[in-house]
């Protein structure tokens, strides 16, 4: 079992290396502007000077998007073993999974009809 995860561990090390590499190279080479100014230390935003704070209070509406994402993430995790067993299931067992999907589809339609998915 663990041998199958060797590749995942390898990818993990590559990802770790890439992250450290991008932070480490400028640090090692001491890459910094010769003359520092407030313009140069601004975060880059398509060439425009950013204004205002980044730490602002967001609308409660965004929470709905995160929650819809969570609900369908959980649904996917529930449905995956069901889908794997699909060929070994009786008809009513397949129907149970379909009911599961239909209930959540109804919830999605409800959220949609309420206009909670409109961009504000």
């Amino acid at each position: 079992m663990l041998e199958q995860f060797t590749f995942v561990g390898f990818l993990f090390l590559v990802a770790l290396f890439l992250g450290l590499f991008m932070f480490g190279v400028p640090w090692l080479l001491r890459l910094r502007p010769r003359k520092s100014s407030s313009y140069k230390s601004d975060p880059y935003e398509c060439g425009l000077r950013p204004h205002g704070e980044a730490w602002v209070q967001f609308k409660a509406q965004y929470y709905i998007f995160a929650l819809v994402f969570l609900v369908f993430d959980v649904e996917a995790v529930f449905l995956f073993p069901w889908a794997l067993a699909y060929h070994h299931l009786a008809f009513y067992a397949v129907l149970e999974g379909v009911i599961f999907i239909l209930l959540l589809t109804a919830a999605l339609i409800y959220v949609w009809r309420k206009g909670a998915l409109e961009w504000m």
Partner: protein
Amino acid sequence: MTQLVLFVIFGAITLAAAIAVVTARNLFHAVLWLLLAFFGVAGLYVLLEAPFFAAAQLFIYMGAIGVLIIYALMLTRGVMRQQVPLVNDQWALVAVLAVALLAVLSWLFLQHTWPTVDQAVGPDSLRTLGEALVDPGRYGFPFEVASVLLVMALIGAVTIVRER
């Protein structure tokens, strides 16, 4: 041997990140440490030969719950910017309760005989789980109730947001 080394590594990641969660003075940093703790637990699931739970841990906890907590923080005004104090005036009472909880949990942990099985986890264990999930005699009912629970969570959230 490899398993032991990996267990120590992932256990250390989980514990260190969990300690960092409660000692971080910035709430946003605490959330990021919490995600690292979730990752450590996913590694422990892999060592337990439960790759499905490891994937579910990454999907749901690191992915969805992490995003949800960060969104919840972004809804609060300025809370995550402040260097919040770590203790309030009830810290002594909490310390006593925490030690008591630790004592009870340790006692239960030591007292319980942990059953083990001889056979290894089969390659089609996930299919067995899928069959058990929709078997009316086993987890069929909880499976359907889970979908109702998810629907309730969505409707509740929409109701709360609409009221504002």
